């Protein structure tokens, strides 16, 4: 039976109902609503399919792990059987016990249909997996598959989603209800775009429809710019929008919730610090709005409700506005009829679990039938009242990319974000700037943020914009002048000026005894850290100020100037709340929490902002450590500040401190909690870096001793230990002059890996293959001196790289997992493709790796998780790194083995019994592949090539019955498509030419047309492959590689860089970049290319096993 949320209504009644925007008491329209809706859903929906968002990418990060996990929890609570499709193996939602069945498969219509055929669900949830899930849902609908399989979309109807996604329909719909949108024209070609621009006048903004995070969008001020941008945008989407520019307007967002009975609330509004023109994902955001009057706030709020009612959203929706800074004029910029990054932020900002509530509303509940998750006594039908502000700040990692522009604008480039809570803006923003984790100490007091041209920095915002404002104040700029240059509201600027003035006041003193208590207290109230205070008052010359900041700490504690704990309770203390969701502030006299002081709490330090190299995997580790602490009957306490995570969901622990992971703040919390101990080994490098400092401050660090951690982290001591243990390592040296570098290279030979300690521009690490490259790199990119030594290591070519993940207790290894890279060493382990269990390692190699691991574990007396990276060549094994903490691959190996490494590690650290009968990786009957997701398409101009520094933003992990099955699933999951027609190959050095020969033959046999750049074509032809030779991009010939891509004549590009160093803009770069810009799959590693080609030549998509996680791991061993 088919039914609709609007139940017994006829189509006409439904139309009338949706058109109605003002409910009238006398109109009794809810009589028309099926009051039995809830029952109908209860009777008909027993099994639902949930689509995840796949790998983390720019614009779609861990927030969807949070929203999906919440939705699954909501379904579980209702007794509904859940089937999840998400290849992101590092997520919490793909852990056992959250969904009933998990498929690590690509979120594409083909695979979803296969799962539907197998599982036969009754309903589907599309709103919890970001744009990926939504787009897949629309494709399923358009292909008639939802109807074919009688699949009810729970929550917002698919027709609504389509209306909000198609910009022209969307604008027309809003016009129909008298809601203003920017004047715009939807066009499908460049000439049409130019015509539209003539009508609008410049400046204008171009947007691509159906993309995430503003991909392909930008501002243009003339026809030439428009032509270029339109061409790019049209490559992402067949339809683009040419719109009036509202640069300088305020940008404000509302998160709106509606149930099937037309009850609506707005859970939170947020105001961007940066005016319109900067993508909301690139802007500092404050919640709630600060510069809007009641009239403006409620005007936009009522409009949001009018819109959500008109479209008939059931669940959650976000509405973005532009608001004129000089009147109440407004435009609706965007409506997202799904959970979003903003909704995750709003959930964390308010304590209102939007995704959970949205999922319940999809099941036919009325809003007021649900409880407020924080108070547990009041209703969920309310609008949170905040008695604090939150400040969200994006985290960029643009330094990791070669060639990328640092200017920020209308498309998103940030890879993560932080949220800071405070009781004034100054406190929140200073906390937030520290949380970003790029060495900043707050708004002021940063020595590394100096700009030559402040005016340009202010008018052409980059990722460093806010620090240029600090410098402008230092230079004596007025608020008005900065406002003229930036259009940032003067309210924000006056608060930043206030911070600067406090800094000047502090600098008038030279010791703590002179410093008035009132000024000290004021500085703490407005967010100054002990470090900043030490720098401004004590003025030490060194950058290491450990003793000074401890002196400040001691001084203020003696004066009774300590932070207080306040609850985030959704109702501003109006009702009592048993909430465990708290933050620290200096704006207050009393704590909301009474501490038990019973030695029963264990603090887990989280991983901070998502960034390249630290992402959802450490969130998984943190959450699992918390679970393990809970299982032992202890109180789990989390400290973290990343709103896009599950670990900052107050449901996962006994107490959540949404606060800084700074030494100062962690000590503050330890002073309050008096914990049994602190876990520093599950949150990546941030907590790891605190371990020794905490240890010195007499804090009990659980697990491996901080002294051992320090021994492993320090290159010299670790190397000495390896020598002592007779464990081989690549030869290396720390050198302070160019001569010494040359001498060392003479000894070990090229290529070498170079790691400067001070970098001027470009990547921090590089491989150089000859003297020219070396000279070039050292001249351009690095300084060499006594102060800034350079580490040079021997680089072993064609070596296998191996990951070892293990858990030990008191120096004995309890369990381990060994994975091998598909790529040879030289590709960062975070970018490499991992195979687990290893398929192509000698048994001898594995045995020796285990021996090495055992020696190291013993020597460092490891208790807890640890990870090693090794090189193997011809059974020669060298250790390249050892981390005494959980690694990126822990969730992957834990899931493939179906054994929770983190739980065991936590048991080891808590010194509680560990179960026997541990599994072994040799017994696995399936293979896991972890593949990396890159976001180069978001990073305009960045060279999409892999190297020794990490550049991927996310990963997937797929399981298959055999190697090819798993590889193909994984590659399809990170966005590769099996080519249907032609392939362009430029195969680089002779070694990779040979590597690719067999693949090329297979492609030919499969009937693919091959194009090759000259050398490649010649080589392959000589070896019997039919291939058409084409010119390099800069050659003046009829057919060039560049043209082929531009004309979309190929649907896979393989471009292997000629050498190991990241090179300047050249032919190869053009080929790679054009492929990325036109969204044509690109592979730049010969080993990976071979693996992919073998896989799709040996297997077609229909051959891939549609098996769930439990199909693999719960299979009876029947030999």
């Amino acid at each position: 039976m088919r039914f609709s949320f609007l139940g017994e209504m006829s189509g006409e009644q439904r139309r009338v109902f949706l058109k109605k925007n003002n409910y009238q008491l006398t109109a009794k329209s809810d009589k028309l609503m099926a009051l039995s809706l809830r029952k109908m859903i209860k009777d008909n929906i027993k099994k639902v399919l949930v689509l995840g968002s796949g790998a983390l990418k720019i614009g779609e990060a861990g927030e969807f792990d949070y929203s999906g996990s919440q939705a699954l929890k909501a379904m579980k609570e209702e007794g509904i059987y859940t089937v999840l499709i998400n290849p992101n193996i590092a997520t919490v939602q793909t852990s056992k016990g959250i969904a009933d069945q998990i498929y690590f498969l690509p979120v594409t219509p083909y695979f979803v249909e296969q799962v539907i055929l197998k599982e036969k669900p009754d309903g589907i949830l599309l709103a919890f997996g970001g744009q990926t899930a939504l787009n897949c849902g629309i494709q399923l609908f358009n292909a008639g598959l939802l109807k074919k399989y009688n699949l009810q979309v729970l929550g917002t109807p698919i027709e609504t989603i389509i209306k909000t996604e198609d910009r022209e329909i969307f604008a027309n719909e809003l016009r129909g209800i008298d809601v203003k949108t920017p004047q715009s024209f939807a066009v499908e070609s460049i000439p049409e775009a130019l015509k539209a621009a003539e009508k609008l006048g410049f400046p204008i903004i171009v947007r691509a429809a159906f993309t995430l995070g503003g991909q392909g969008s930008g501002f243009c001020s003339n026809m030439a710019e428009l032509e270029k941008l339109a061409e790019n945008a049209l490559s992402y989407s067949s339809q683009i929008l040419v719109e009036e520019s509202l640069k300088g307007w305020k940008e404000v967002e509302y998160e709106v919730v509606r149930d099937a009975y037309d009850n609506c609330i707005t859970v939170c509004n947020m105001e961007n610090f940066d005016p319109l023109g900067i993508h909301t994902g690139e802007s500092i955001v404050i919640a709630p709005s600060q510069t809007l009057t009641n009239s403006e706030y409620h005007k936009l709020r009522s409009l949001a409700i009018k819109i959500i009612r008109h479209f008939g959203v059931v669940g959650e929706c976000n509405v973005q506005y532009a608001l004129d800074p000089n009147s109440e004029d407004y435009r609706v910029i965007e409506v997202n009829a799904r959970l979003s990054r903003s909704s995750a932020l709003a959930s964390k900002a308010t304590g209102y679990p939007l995704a959970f509530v949205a999922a319940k509303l999809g099941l036919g509940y009325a809003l007021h039938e649900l409880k407020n998750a924080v108070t547990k006594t009041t209703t969920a039908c309310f609008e949170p009242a905040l008695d604090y502000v939150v400040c969200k700040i994006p985290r960029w990692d643009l330094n990791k990319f070669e060639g990328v522009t640092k200017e920020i604008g209308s498309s998103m480039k940030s890879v993560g974000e932080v949220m800071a809570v405070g009781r004034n803006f100054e406190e929140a923003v200073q906390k937030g700037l520290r949380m970003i984790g790029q060495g900043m100490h707050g708004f002021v007091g940063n020595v590394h943020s100096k700009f030559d041209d402040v005016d340009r920095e202010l008018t052409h915002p980059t990722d460093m914009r806010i620090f240029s404002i600090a410098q402008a104040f230092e230079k004596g700029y007025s608020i008005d002048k900065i406002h003229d240059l930036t259009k940032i509201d003067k309210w924000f600027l006056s608060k930043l000026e206030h911070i600067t003035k406090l800094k000047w006041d502090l600098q008038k003193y030279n010791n703590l005894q002179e410093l008035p208590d009132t000024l000290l207290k004021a500085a703490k109230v407005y967010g100054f850290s002990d470090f900043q205070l030490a720098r401004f008052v004590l003025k030490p010359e060194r950058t290491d100020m450990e003793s000074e900041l401890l002196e400040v700490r001691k001084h203020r504690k003696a004066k009774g100037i300590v932070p207080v704990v306040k609850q985030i309770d959704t109702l501003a203390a109006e009702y009592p709340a048993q909430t465990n969701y708290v933050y620290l502030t200096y704006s207050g006299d009393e704590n909301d929490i009474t501490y038990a002081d019973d030695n029963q709490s264990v603090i887990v330090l989280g991983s901070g902002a998502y960034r390249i190299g630290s992402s959802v995997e450490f969130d998984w580790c943190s959450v699992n450590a918390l679970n393990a602490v809970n299982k032992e009957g202890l109180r789990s306490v989390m400290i973290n500040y990343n709103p896009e995570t599950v670990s900052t969901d107050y449901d996962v622990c006994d107490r959540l401190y949404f606060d800084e992971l700074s030494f100062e703040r962690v000590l503050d919390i330890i002073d309050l909690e008096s914990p049994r101990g602190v876990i520093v080994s599950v949150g990546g490098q941030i907590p790891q870096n605190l371990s020794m400092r905490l240890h010195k401050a007499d804090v009990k660090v659980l697990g491996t001793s901080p002294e051992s951690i320090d021994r492993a982290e320090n290159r010299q001591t670790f190397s000495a230990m390896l020598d002592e243990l007779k464990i081989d390592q690549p030869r290396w040296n720390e050198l302070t002059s160019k001569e010494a570098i040359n001498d060392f290279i003479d000894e070990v030979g090229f290529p070498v890996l170079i790691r400067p300690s001070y970098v001027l521009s470009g990547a921090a690490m590089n491989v150089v293959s000859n003297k020219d490259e070396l000279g070039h790199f050292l001249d351009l990119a690095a300084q060499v001196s006594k102060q800034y030594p350079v580490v040079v290591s021997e680089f072993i070519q064609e070596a296998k790289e191996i990951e070892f993940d293990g858990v030990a207790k008191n120096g004995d290894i309890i369990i381990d997992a060994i994975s091998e890279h598909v790529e040879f060493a030289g590709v960062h382990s975070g970018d490499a493709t991992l195979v687990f269990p290893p398929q192509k390692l000698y048994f001898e190699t594995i045995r020796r790796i285990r021996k090495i691991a055992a020696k190291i574990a013993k020597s460092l007396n490891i208790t807890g998780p640890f990870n090693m990276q090794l090189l193997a060549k011809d059974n020669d094994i060298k250790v390249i790194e050892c981390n005494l903490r959980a690694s990126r691959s822990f969730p992957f190996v834990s899931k493939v083995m179906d054994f929770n490494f983190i739980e065991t590690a936590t048991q080891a650290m808590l010194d509680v019994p560990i179960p026997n009968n541990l599994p072994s990786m040799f017994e696995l009957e399936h293979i896991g592949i972890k593949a990396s997701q890159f976001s180069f398409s978001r990073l305009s101009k960045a060279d999409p090539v892999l190297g020794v520094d990490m550049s991927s933003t996310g990963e997937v992990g797929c399981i298959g019955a055999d190697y090819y099955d798993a590889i193909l699933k994984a590659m399809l999951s990170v966005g590769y498509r099996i080519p249907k027609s032609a392939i362009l190959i430029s195969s680089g050095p002779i070694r990779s030419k040979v590597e690719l020969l067999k693949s090329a033959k297979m492609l030919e046999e499969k009937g693919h047309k091959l194009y090759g750049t000259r050398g490649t074509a010649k080589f392959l032809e000589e070896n019997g492959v039919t291939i058409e030779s084409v010119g390099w991009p800069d050659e003046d010939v009829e057919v060039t590689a560049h043209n082929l891509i531009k004309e979309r004549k190929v649907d896979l590009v393989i471009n292997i860089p000629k050498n190991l160093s990241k090179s300047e803009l050249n032919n190869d770069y053009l080929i790679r970049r054009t492929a990325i810009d036109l969204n044509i799959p690109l592979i730049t590693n010969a080993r990976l290319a071979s693996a992919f080609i073998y896989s799709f030549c040996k297997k077609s998509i229909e051959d891939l096993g549609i098996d769930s996680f439990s199909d693999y791991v719960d299979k009876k061993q029947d030999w």
Partner: protein
Amino acid sequence: MSGETKAKLILQDGSEYIGTSFGYQESISGEMVFNTAMTGYPESLTDPSYRGQILVSTFPLIGNYGVPGTLQEDDLFRFYESEKIQVSAFIVSDYTEEFSHWNASLSLGDWMKQHKIPGIYGVDTRALTKKLREQGSMLAKIVFEGKEPEWKDPNLENLVAQVSTPEKIVYGNGKHKVVLLDCGVKNNIIRCLLKRDTTVIRVPHDYDFTKEEYDGLFISNGPGDPKQNTKAIANLKTVFGQDTPIMGICLGTQLMALAAGADTYKLKYGHRSHNQPVVLKGSKRCFITSQNHGYAINMDTLPKEWEPLFVNANDGTCEGLKHTSKPFFASQFHPEASSGPTDTEFLFDDFIKMMEDHKVKR
């Protein structure tokens, strides 16, 4: 840091807090209440229902967008809810003097100085709120150096008399003639009526409207204990015998309940916020409302010809009344909003419709 004046906040329970002055420097006493709204301080401060009260804002950042000017529209201040600041004092956590808004004409502090209203910041307003929540609304005083005032309980005074119009005023020239009993009416109630084609005849709180000719009677909001308004209650009893539509808001609702024979009581700490959910009885509809009241109707005491129209989804208190057969209804919350959400403004439409239906019947 220099040039700041400190003031002491003393509560009835003896606790003391120190804050920094940002308004007029004069010691005062009153009843301390809290409001959890995040916007709308100019509207709240001029709301006559706050007469005699020291208002604590739980939202910590206040003053950001300054205060709008004194533009008049329909003989009413466009941006205020009455002609002056009504609260006795304002307590906030973090105050902004350097406001920023196109529509602002002066800072909140300067405005309060003009109106001789004290304000202090730098106080742990969350701690104050928790105290009020646990111990109930209590008396408080703000003390500037040297001058400590006597304790003053505003609920013992006739607050309505202090805020009601002294004389009859007529607004607009619309087709429906509405008599508005002013017990401390907010300007936006008048605005909401005027934009619906009405003539509003605003009369004093103790005015005998029973002899007036009108299409509808409106009983306004106002401060204090409803039982003090004996004249208004007596007059309402009289018109309940007729069939002309009556609508009440807030205090007006309580007066209608008392006139119907029901009882009212003082809430521990009241509802003062923009986020109170109310459920329309017998439906799945729940509305977010703006509220400001310290007293409530005891639903158990309602006579049988009256029934609850709305109830609070959080604490189950009465949020509105409806006569079972006559066109009389009332809401405890503020459908006119200002400040707060405007989701229930449809109640004014229903009032108009009742008047139209009544005219047809007549």
